[in-house]
Every structure is written in C-alpha cells, then in structure tokens.
C-alpha cells in the first residue's frame, strides 16, 4: 500500500464516528461575523490611508494629474534614482527627470543592484491597511517588489475594498498573491520592532484619488 493509501485509510479509520451519510455541508458553519468592519459612513480611503501609515509606511494622496509629481518628490526625498519598472506600468504616471528606469526582464543580481521599484497594486484593504499585488500589468514579478530596498506602490482609490472578505472575493487565487501591510519588519529581538530585514525597508504608498467624473 502506498503512503497515500495508508494515510487515507488511517483518516477513514479515525473518522469511524462520522456517519457515512454525513457530507461536509451537514456540518453547519455559522457565518454571523461581519462582512466589513467599516463603521457606517466611514470613508474606506481615509481609513486605508490611516492604517497604512500606522505600519510606518508613508502615505501620499494625489489627484490623477498630480501623480508623476508626487512620485518624483517621494523618490527625491528618499534619494532613490535607479528603479525597476514592471511591464505595463502606465507611462503617463512616470515622472520626468534624470532617473534610470530599468524595464523587465531583469535578473535577480540586476534587481539587487537597484535602489527600488515602482508598482501598481491589485487590491487594497481599508480595515487592515493592506495592499495586494497579483503580478498583473504594472505590478511585475514578485521579486520586483521584494529585492530592492525601496518600494513605491500606486493604488487607485476605487481599488480599495472595505475589508478582507470583500478583498478576497475580488482576487484570483490562481495568481501568485502578495499581501503587504507596511514595510518588512521583525520583533524577534526582545520584541523591539525593527523595520526592514529582508524585504524593502521603506514603503511609500500613493493613493490616486477618484476624479470627480468617476465618483
């Protein structure tokens, strides 16, 4: 008997008390929890900005036409000039100036030699202050937002879901997903929080406000 058959047989033996006619749906799961922890009337974008900042990431809010200028200012403040650029990142969001944009494909050592990366996001979660990347257009491979020490993520206000249940429903589990809540951090030494161990130590999030026509 293969180990697969052995383990399955042991499971079935262990569950001798479960009636043969019982299906999974017969075990009731009461879902009385809230779909969203947003308070009535609370603005998800406002809450998202607050909660992202709570993780010591820096939040910028910008009207669509101001995004390149906001990105330019953030990069200058951080002293970041050599950046990875994922394919599909909208050219109109890129600031002008003397920065080096390295388009994909990049090897890991090439990525490691860069200062940072800019990406879009797939979904945001207001209550937890989380951004989710799904490797879609403008987001790049997972390594892109991981290896360089600085990550700037641009998210549109309408991508921000109220809470986790709604966010998971918007995502495709077949894609590789990365949920980011603040910069890399550790509390392993005397529970003293230190930002940045292996992932980017600095996270800037630019929220693109909905324009009047869209809202």
């Amino acid at each position, binding site marked *: 008997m293969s180990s697969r058959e052995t383990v399955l047989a042991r499971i079935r033996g262990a*569950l001798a008390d479960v009636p043969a006619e019982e299906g*999974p749906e017969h075990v009731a*799961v009461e879902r009385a*929890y809230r779909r969203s922890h947003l308070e009535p009337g609370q603005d998800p974008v406002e809450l998202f900005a607050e909660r992202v900042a709570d993780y010591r990431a820096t939040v910028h809010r910008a009207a669509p036409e101001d995004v390149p200028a906001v990105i330019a200012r953030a990069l200058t403040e951080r002293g970041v000039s050599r950046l990875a650029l994922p394919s599909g990142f909208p050219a109109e969001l890129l600031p002008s100036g003397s920065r080096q944009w390295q388009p994909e494909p990049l090897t890991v050592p090439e990525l490691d030699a860069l200062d940072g990366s800019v990406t879009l996001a797939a979904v945001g979660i207001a209550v937890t202050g989380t951004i989710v990347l799904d490797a879609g257009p403008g987001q790049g491979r*997972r390594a892109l937002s*991981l290896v360089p020490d600085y990550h700037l993520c641009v998210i549109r206000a309408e991508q921000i879901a109220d809470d986790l249940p709604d966010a998971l429903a918007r995502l495709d589990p077949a894609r*590789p997903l990365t949920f980011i809540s603040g910069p890399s951090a550790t509390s*392993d030494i*005397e529970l003293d929080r230190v930002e940045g161990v*292996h992932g980017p130590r600095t996270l800037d999030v630019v929220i693109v406000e909905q324009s009047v026509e869209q809202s």
Partner: protein
Amino acid sequence: MSDRGVVWLGSPSFPEAARTALADQQLRTNLRRATTTIRDKRLAVAAELDDWEELRTAAEAIKRRTARHLDRYLLQLEEAVIAAGGSVHWAGDAAEANRIVAALIQATGEREVVKIKSMATQEIGLNEALAREGITAYETDLAELIVQLGEDRPSHILVPAIHKNRTEIRDLFAAEMAHWGEPAPEGLSDDPRELAEAARRHLRKKFLAAKVAVSGANFAVADTGTVTVVESEGNGRMCLSLPETLITVMGIEKVVPTWSDLEVFLQLLPRSSTGERMNPYTSTWTGVTEGDGPSQFHLVLLDNGRTDTLADTVGRQVLACIRCSACLNVCPVFERTGGHAYGSVYPGPIGAVLTPQLVGVEQAASLPFASTLCGACYDACPVKIDIPEVLAHLRAEVVEAKRHALSPEALAMKAAATVLDSPRLLSAAQKAASLGGRVLAREGRIGRLPGPLHGWSDTRDSPAPPAESFRTWWRKNREGTP
C-alpha cells in the same frame, strides 16, 4: 527524537525541566516582559472587532467540518495542486517526510537550501535529517537564525529566541556568523536595528544564490490548491519567489475547504499571534506560475501522529490549531517556565495537548499535568480549542496507562498492603523504619527521601518514626498483665 519523530521530546520530564527554568531569574524576567507585551497588543486589536466571538465560532466550525471530512479535502487539494503544475507527496511519519524532502533536494543536485520558519519541519527534525545526507539547511527567519547559530532550541512558537536578550544575540552573531557565511560586521553593537542589519547582510547572498527552498504552510485551500505563508520579515517571500524549486511540508490538518474561508483565518491569525491587524507579508501561490517564482513545486502532506489524534473524538479538536501562540502568552505556567521545559517543539498549553497526542501519552506523560486548568488558554484561542477539556481527558489517559505500568507510588502501596496484612511483616517493617527513619531524619523530621519517593517528600516534611513502635512497647510493658 522519540519513536514517532517529534524532536527532543521527554528528557527531562516537565517537572524537572521546570524546576531548572524557575531558578533562572533572567529567563523569567525576559518571559514576563515578552508575554505581557504581546498579550496587551492582542487584546487591543481583538477588541477592535466587535464580532470577534462570531469569527471564533466560524473558525471552529470550519475546522470541525474539515476534520470530519479530511480525506475528501486532502484529495481535492491534491487534485488542484497537480492541476496547477505542482506535485504532491504523502508521508506517514517523520522519517518518511525527511526521506522525501532529501530525495527531492538530491534530484536538483544542490547541497544547500534556504528555509522559512516552520513548525512542521521542526517537528520532524528535518534540518538534522538533511545534515546526515550532507545537505545544509539555512534558517532565514531572524529568530530561527539565532537559534541555529547558537545550536539552541526554540522556546516559543512565534518568537523562538525570546529566551535570549540582545547582548547574548550580539555575542552569538560575532562568534558564529563567520562559520556559516557572511561574518558579522566588526564592532557590532547590541542595538536590535544593527543586529537585524547584520542578519540581512548574512543571508543576502544565500537568498540570491539559493536554488531550493523549504517551507511550511499556514493554510492550504482545497478547492483552489492555493498554499499560504504568513510572515513579517520578507525572508519568506525571498524563499517562496527566488529559488527554482520549492518544497512545502504541511501537516494534513492545515487544509481549509474554500478560498473564502481564509477571510476568517486571516482576520484571526495576525491579531491573535503578533497583535497586529495584519502581518507585514502574506504570500499565496497555486502550483507554479510561468515566469514568476519557482518552476518546480512539491507539497509534502505529513501525518506523523495526526491521524491518531483525529481518532480521539475529544482530542481531535486540537488539530484546529493555527499555531498563533496566543495560549502561550496567557498561560501562567508558560510565563514562569518558558518553552524549553516542555521538551517539545510545541510548548505551552497547546504543546501540552498536542505533543502527547502526536507521540502517544506514555511518551509525554507529564505534559497534560503542566497546567493549572485556569482556562485562560481557552479564552485566548482564536479557533476555540477547549484546551482544559483536552488536558483533563489526557490526564485520565495517563492515569489509565499508568495502571498497566506500575508507578513507584503504586508499587509502594502494593508493598504496604502486603505488610499491613501480616503482623510479622509489620513488626519487622516498623523496626526497620525506626532504624532507617532515624538515619534519614534531621532534628526529628524527615526531609528529602532518596529514589523515586522524593516526589512525595519534596513538598512535605514528615516526623521521624519513634524509636519504639506501639506494638513493641505493648509487648514489653503490658503483655501478660491483666
């Protein structure tokens, strides 16, 4: 390692190990500070959700549904992972899991792997097994790195190196890092920021060069084949996305039925564990993705005593554990003894109920007694495992097991019964006790008894037996008189 493969179990037993730990003032101070801090953070973020009880109830029910139909969900998971380009392997015990992982690594031709902190691989002693095959496994979580460099043992599920303070960590980095790769920088201070930076530099080359990574899993979704790892530092992301081959070892109980079930567990786990609304990084992947991440993905499904646990209708609820460690931080016993005293990779209240079930109660008979039954662990548990109920249940099993193998106390009682039945033996015994008792006694009291009887004498002094028994006195003074 015990027969069943849970590493460093049972020597010494909890009461002995606890006595040593209790004498360590530094350890108790470190632990009290750590557990109090995490406990307060957890309470604050759990209180933010006014439906916390409803989330716990749903989590408990999802886990019950999964356990009662575990075979079906594992088959569904297997099918989905294979459909997405992954491979699935089944391991009945630790030795088999270790053989599978070693063979998978050998097939790549590599001798080094990077590892994400994982309870399952600690449980089976994977690093030690790989070392015997000439394969070096590098722990990449900061706390696990500290434990590995110090040839130490983890003492907490969430923060395995919590028993070490910053100065000890600095000294360890300075002395040991050079033997494993990038040495610690000259003049390293004990500032946590500098220590984290040293760890970053130490591991950077390993991440960028690694061809094979080994991980555990927090959850695996049956209907989509999606596997999840929850972490903070980004070492997990490095291992999950840079190497060519990824090998994930997960206990069979980690499966959840549907993608949307994660909405319950991803709310409960970070808040219960680190006291955060969300941990910095959660990664999910389904099989392999062309052009992004490993091109080979192997999922190893581990039994190693879990099916025996499943067979116990009271004890099976322990399989719902999501390894958040909230029960450790509220436990008055853990707070004073620390994790090493439990002699298992699973310490604290959850260890006291999980370990004896994984290895058999006779292998870990003292652990179900390592509790005051105060119930704080049950209140803290995000998936509502009734730990006190399981503790009481396992205590009964330990007692039952002991009936068959006679304990020192039982042997003493049996001897006493024989002696008390016979006037001749009683007389002889009293004479012996009188002599022996006075040898053992100091100032008319008997303190610590030698051998197995010390368990009784440790907590009480007894008066020394009189020089003469009543029967002797009677015979001498009254016998023959009317």
